[in-house]
């Protein structure tokens, strides 16, 4: 009995018990459904063992949407708790758990897989490749992410959620001040999915460097591919820092080391420094692919080439370099002195220059264009003014002396939501709508999509602009309640209403998927948006091998050239195509990682050691395995091509 007590929730509430029941019922329903419809084999053959970058991209996408829902529910609960003064809806402990999981889920398990979804799906198509460089590693990346996310979410029902903030500052996150296993979950779940991210970084860089279509020099790559390349370079640079920091944190919590402790020579701010050495570049890891998607969409719907291609590329490279030199602006108030603060203040402000260049280039791309207001374009246009507001408040925060007043307040919360929501979330929803027809063969309904956009934008303004004001009025972030005398009440109520409006927008997006699955026409052709780059040059749905003949490229918008200037995209003739085989090893290995993580969380050493041995066994198996992939014969390709041409 004592053995099982450790799995109990330390601070149970009705909502948690209700969720346990709901999760249990959902799992039973899924298992029953799969069994009844005899879909286990289909699931295993087509999805769990796939190494196809398109399917992996779609799995990332589905995971991201589910996590967006989970993080969104957390957000609504937080806003509801703060809507009125002295609210008793949540107690301090639950509120702390909720804002912690909201942050982790949104950054690590929503935004990251969302950008991975587009990188995976779009980049190989955009560069005219048949898959990524290491397809099986790609599958491993996805499953590590997936099981990391599952492990993190398990904390909700077994053992208790982390409660030290998404930044998980030590010593607060140490055993002395966070006794539940929640922070163990944080350390291990992010570690496992972080390994996946690092592998994705290696994979994408190799893919883009090595597998571009003939004629596509670096300066002829589409902008989203450039953004992906730069992003993955940052990822490979900074994720190892996170890996090390998490390993040190895990050792502090499980093995009694004192890296970040208050005693025996531990250093308080060492965690904060390591965390932000990764954490600040991380926000650029999220925003640069978003910039890439906006570039594609704005150029497509303005009907023009992207203005200032070279300066767009240069600005991304400059941003990526600067992003690694600004981490201390997250703690100007640490007491490191005026000189050090001045340095980080200036480097931070410098980032606004290349970012400004990008904004102006998008504006000049619209110049003399022929602007079509589709749903992806609405998100991209809405992004510009809202992101500029978020950007200028960022420059305000970068003034370190003034930051002493903004730091840890709702002003800061307003700022980073003001950059991440219009910056990243809008881009993901724009990309979702833009690439949906390529992924699934039908368009999302434009009318419902436009309603969702307006609800989201207005809800966003209502939810976050009041926070700038309450922040300047002295409302610290992460307070679970406040007294009526503070006067924060009315504006927090406005925020709550805004959060509700955003929830309606999310519901509309879900409804749009349902509606479009049922009613959207399926005969949309391969190029429904009249777009410009290679991913639109192949069939919809995209065949397994992407392109029957390798495309020839002469500019950054090869497909546009072929439509307007008579550029011959596919000059070669059909040959047999070499493709990788499916493999169950990535899934199995990641599942073992999950068992390992769970055992570590609860200090169950024997299963932890067995899992480590099993993980190495999987790697050994891979080393000795002879798997040279398979060929698709010319005859098969011809059959597929005829069928797909008929479909369009």
């Amino acid at each position, binding site marked *: 009995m004592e053995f099982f007590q450790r799995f109990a929730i330390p601070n149970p509430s009705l909502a948690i018990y209700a969720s346990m029941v709901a999760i249990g019922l959902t799992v039973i329903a899924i298992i029953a459904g799969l069994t009844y419809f005899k879909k286990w084999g289909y699931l295993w053959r087509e999805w769990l063992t796939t190494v196809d970058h398109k399917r992996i991209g779609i799995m990332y996408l589905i995971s991201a949407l589910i996590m967006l829902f989970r993080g969104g529910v957390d957000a609504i609960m937080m806003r509801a708790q703060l809507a009125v003064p002295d609210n008793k809806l949540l107690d*301090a*402990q639950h509120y702390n758990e909720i804002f912690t999981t909201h942050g982790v889920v949104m950054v690590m398990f929503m935004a990251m897989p969302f950008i991975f979804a587009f990188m995976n799906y779009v980049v190989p198509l955009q560069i005219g490749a048949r898959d990524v460089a290491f397809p099986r590693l790609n599958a491993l990346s996805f499953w590590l992410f997936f099981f990391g996310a599952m492990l993190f979410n398990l904390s909700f029902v077994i053992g208790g959620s982390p*409660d*030290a903030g998404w930044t998980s*500052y030590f010593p*607060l996150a140490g055993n*002395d*001040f*966070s006794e539940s296993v929640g922070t163990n979950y944080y350390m291990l779940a992010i570690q496992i999915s972080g390994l996946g991210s690092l592998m994705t970084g290696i994979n994408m860089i190799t893919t883009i460097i090595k597998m571009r279509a003939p004629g596509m020099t670096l300066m002829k790559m589409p902008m989203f591919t450039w953004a992906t390349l730069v992003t993955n370079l940052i990822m490979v640079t900074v994720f190892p820092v996170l890996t090390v920091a998490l390993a040190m944190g895990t050792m502090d919590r499980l093995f009694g080391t004192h890296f970040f402790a*208050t005693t025996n*020579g*531990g*250093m*308080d701010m060492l965690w904060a420094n390591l965390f932000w050495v990764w954490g600040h570049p991380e926000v650029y890891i999220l925003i640069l692919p978003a910039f890439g998607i906006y570039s594609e969409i704005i150029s497509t719907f303005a*009907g*023009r080439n992207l*203005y*200032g291609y070279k300066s767009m590329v240069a600005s991304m490279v400059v941003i990526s370099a600067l992003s690694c030199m600004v981490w201390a602006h997250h703690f100007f108030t640490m*007491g490191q*002195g*005026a000189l050090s*603060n*001045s340095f980080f203040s*200036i480097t931070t*402000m410098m980032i606004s220059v290349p970012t*400004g*260049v990008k904004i*102006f280039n998008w*504006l*000049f791309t*619209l*110049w*003399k264009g*022929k*602007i*079509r207001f589709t749903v992806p374009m609405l998100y991209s246009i809405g992004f*510009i*003014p809202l992101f*500029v*507001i978020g950007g*200028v408040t960022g*420059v*305000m925060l*970068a*003034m*370190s*002396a*003034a*930051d*002493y*007043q903004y*730091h*840890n307040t709702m002003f800061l919360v307003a700022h980073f939501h003001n950059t991440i929501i219009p910056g990243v979330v809008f881009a993901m929803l724009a990309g979702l709508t833009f690439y949906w027809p390529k992924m699934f063969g039908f368009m999302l309904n434009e009318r419902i999509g436009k309603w969702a956009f307006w609800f989201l934008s207005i809800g966003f303004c209502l939810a976050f602009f009041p926070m700038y*004001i309450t922040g*300047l*009025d*002295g409302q*610290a972030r992460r*307070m679970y309640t*406040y007294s009526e005398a503070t006067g924060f009440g009315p504006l927090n109520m406005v925020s709550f209403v805004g959060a509700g409006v955003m929830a309606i927008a999310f519901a509309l997006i879900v409804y749009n998927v349902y509606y479009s699955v049922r009613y959207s026409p399926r005969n949309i052709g391969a190029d429904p948006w009249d777009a410009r780059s290679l991913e639109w040059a192949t069939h919809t749905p995209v065949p397994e091998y992407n392109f029957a003949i390798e495309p020839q490229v002469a500019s950054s918008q090869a497909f546009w050239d072929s439509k307007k200037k008579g550029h011959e995209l596919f000059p070669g003739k059909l040959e047999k195509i070499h493709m990788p085989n499916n493999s169950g090893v990535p899934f199995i290995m990641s599942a073992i990682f999950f068992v390992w993580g769970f055992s570590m969380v609860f200090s169950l050493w024997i299963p932890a050691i067995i899992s480590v041995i099993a993980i190495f066994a999987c790697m050994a198996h891979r080393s000795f395995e002879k798997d040279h992939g398979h060929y698709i014969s010319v005859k098969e390709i011809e059959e597929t091509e005829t069928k797909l041409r008929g479909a369009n």
Partner: protein
Amino acid sequence: MKVKSALLMLVFTIVTVLTGCEPLMVLDPKGPQANRQAHDIMLSIGIMSFIVIVVFAILIYVLIKYRASKASPDYEPPHIEGNKWVEMICVGIPIIIVAYFSFVSVQSNYIVEAKPQVYKDKEPLVIYASSSDWKWHFSYPEENIETVNYLYIPTNRPIEFKLYSYGPITSFWIPQLGGQKYAMSDMVTTLHLAADKPGEMMGRNANFSGKGFAENMFNVTATTEKDFDKWVKDVKKTAKPLTEKKFNELLKPGHLGQMTFTGTHLGFSPAPEHHHSGSSKHEEGHTGNSQMDMDMSEHQNHK
């Protein structure tokens, strides 16, 4: 200069009107450091509003002028690579703005990190402010008194806060006197503040520190130097001494009301000023404050 201050006034008025009658705490400074910070904030809001307006104007213009529904059906948008001069302007103007902000920022850094200029001739009052879950201990070494969760300070005199923590990282913040700074367990940080006028203010821990964080606040009273001296005298007459045993009791996690003691904890539990590692905090204990008896009662400050 006139244009700038007029612009600042305008923005200030808009912000004030938008948020009801009472001025926002950070923009209602009561001391020189907060004053400088409020000035920086208003200045940046002013210039940044200008940038936002420019971008909005360009965006609205191009959206209206170049929308497809207005263009003729056979209009083909031209291919434009980019223009050297346009791009130089797009880089140049932001660089000028950033350079100006950098200048202001560096200047302000040295101002807020030093003794307030207006009171530079006066000897600063040193107060050790330490946090424990979830309260603040204020030690006045010169006056040899200690308070919990409330702060008395004299006006028109620089105050040097020495910050540290008996637990997680906290952040000492009195918005109307100046911005915050971290209090940590393995080092002491210094925050320079001063109050211009007598009055009551809110102070709090701004950095999340666990369950009791929301209520981790304290009261600040700024009084004239004369009243401050009188308060010190009163405390010495009425308050009970702080013993090590009592102090260790105070450190236990929880919330306490306001309390006052004679003597400080600096003797038996010194601030981590001289050594970096937090090893064995009690090795220097039991040296000072030996004159104190073991009276455990305390003087509860009425509020």
